[in-house]
């Protein structure tokens, strides 16, 4: 690395020494920092907003839940079309030039949204012959027929969601009963889908979907990927996040619920998402991470980067740091040996 070496006249210190107690200094620092942390705790505490559940989602936003569930069944939800590591979709696959890291690493957490989020939970409902028949009819139908049923049921729900978002009068094809939190969708040609969605909404409101998405082949479970992805496909998490200034456009990467500081050290990471060409790019996450990776390597290599490693000599902040030293005798030309 000789080509990286530039002139460095820094020589070992030959000057004086002052008494110093390293252990005492560390103990005092520990006491001060611990006290500061306790004072901040007493003054501000820390945030702990309760997590959302699928039960809560299906009660508070039953139409949104039904819309999301229908998309999961139809394979048109963000998770269903995501791509690796969940499935073979392409909607959320990012690449830059020859870098296709997401595809190279493949599907490591396989998720079939139709079965994992809808059909398998429905199969846990006992003693409902009508629902059993609807599930069997759906599973036995050709893909083309399934698609027609899904679209027939999803279309009025999407029109309803659009009207709600634009604060217009919702179409009469979707009726939400605010007393029972039930949803009625007037959709012709939807086959068994209305029966299935009514069953899933009831199951979710009773807490059954929360449990069934965590069920695995073993008793203990710590992987919340499925329920989190299902909820993220709906509107409840985003609604809560927007109210708490946690969206990406709100620099949410740095924020936490309430007025707490969150992760302010991610300010530079969050910054790139606010500016072009990252802001509008389909590959924004990958491009931002590559940029941060490049900057991180540069940060580590600052001692080796010409000009950057000389700026501290040109900007006289060091005169402020070592002002006592420069005031002293023999500072000029003898400070470092």
């Amino acid at each position, binding site marked *: 690395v000789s080509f990286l*070496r*530039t*002139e*460095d006249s*820094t020589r*070992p*210190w030959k*000057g004086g*020494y*002052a008494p*110093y107690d*390293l252990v005492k200094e560390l103990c005092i*620092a*520990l006491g001060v*920092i*611990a006290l*500061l*942390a306790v004072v*901040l*705790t007493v003054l*501000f505490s*820390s945030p*702990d*907003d*309760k997590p*959302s559940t699928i039960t809560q989602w299906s009660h508070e936003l039953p139409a949104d839940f039904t819309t999301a569930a229908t998309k999961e069944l139809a394979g048109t939800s963000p998770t269903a079309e995501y791509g690796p*590591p969940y499935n073979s979709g392409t909607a*959320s696959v990012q690449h830059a030039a020859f870098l296709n*890291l*997401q595809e190279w690493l493949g599907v490591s*957490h396989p998720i079939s949204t139709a079965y994992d989020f809808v059909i398998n939970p429905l199969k846990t409902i006992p003693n409902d012959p009508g629902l059993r028949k609807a599930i069997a009819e759906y599973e036995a139908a050709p893909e083309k027929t399934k698609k027609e049923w899904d679209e027939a049921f999803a279309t009025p729900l999407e029109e309803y969601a659009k009207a709600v978002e634009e604060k217009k009068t919702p179409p009469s094809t979707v009726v939400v009963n605010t007393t029972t939190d039930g949803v009625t969708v007037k959709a012709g040609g939807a086959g068994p889908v209305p029966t299935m969605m009514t069953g899933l909404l009831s199951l979710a409101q009773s807490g059954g979907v929360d449990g069934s998405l965590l069920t695995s082949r073993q008793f203990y479970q710590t*992987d*919340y990927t499925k329920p*989190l992805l299902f*909820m993220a496909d709906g509107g409840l998490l985003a609604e*809560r996040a927007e109210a708490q200034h946690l969206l*990406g456009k709100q620099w949410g*990467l740095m924020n936490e619920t309430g007025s*707490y*500081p969150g*992760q302010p050290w991610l300010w530079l990471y969050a910054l790139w998402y606010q500016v072009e060409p990252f802001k509008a790019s389909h*590959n924004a*996450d*990958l491009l931002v*991470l*590559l940029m941060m990776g490049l900057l991180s390597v540069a*940060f*580590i290599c600052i*001692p080796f980067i010409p000009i950057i490693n*000389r700026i501290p*000599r040109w900007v006289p902040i*060091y005169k402020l*740091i*070592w002002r*006592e*030293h*420069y005031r*002293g005798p023999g500072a000029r*030309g003898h*400070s470092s040996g």
Partner: protein
Amino acid sequence: MSAPPTRPSKSWTVKIRERGVEALPPERLLPDGQPTYVASWIYVFGVASIASLMVIIGSGCILTLKGPAWWHVTGIGHFFNSVHMWSVELFFFTMVIHLWGKYWMAAWRGGRAHVWVTGAVTFLVAVPAALTGYVSQQNFDAQWISTQAKDAMNSVGVGAFFNLTDFGQMYSYHVLLLPVVVVLLVSAHVLLVRRNGVVPPFELHERMPAARVESPVADGAEASSGGQS
């Protein structure tokens, strides 16, 4: 009585001990004096970073002893979670000021580039150490952060083996794997500071000094000097 055992000439133990003592004799490892130029408040932020890390580990150990759900249901648990959170904020705050201070001192001079590198890498490893804590909180913040940040992890393929929505995996990273890496890096950083000493001030008559990195001199004459991290 038998004669004392002779020292095996190729003993790994002896070699490591001799090299250790040669690199860091006790008076340099735990000095009782420091160069007179170490006289600014900026020097406090290095030791403050270490103190913050100690509070983080202490409060984190208490939270770990009681399990991840404890702090949600008890006042004392919430207290220690708050101390943990604020000590993390203090850790990053003091570390960033420490890094800026070292930049403006060009603290990599005189063969100290590896000191800078270990400090910078510590900062970069501390970021995922904190992130895994945020997604292990088991509250709405954890839900939102994990579902949003997963896209970035997935975009670079990391999501295949580092799943932010898997609480069990993130908790393991947060309470063991990443803290161990941070502590090892900080330990290496501090030992390197002790070995090389605090970078001396620029000489005022210098015109264009800069960093000749990896200097073989390595400030050996500072063997008895002190200095802060």
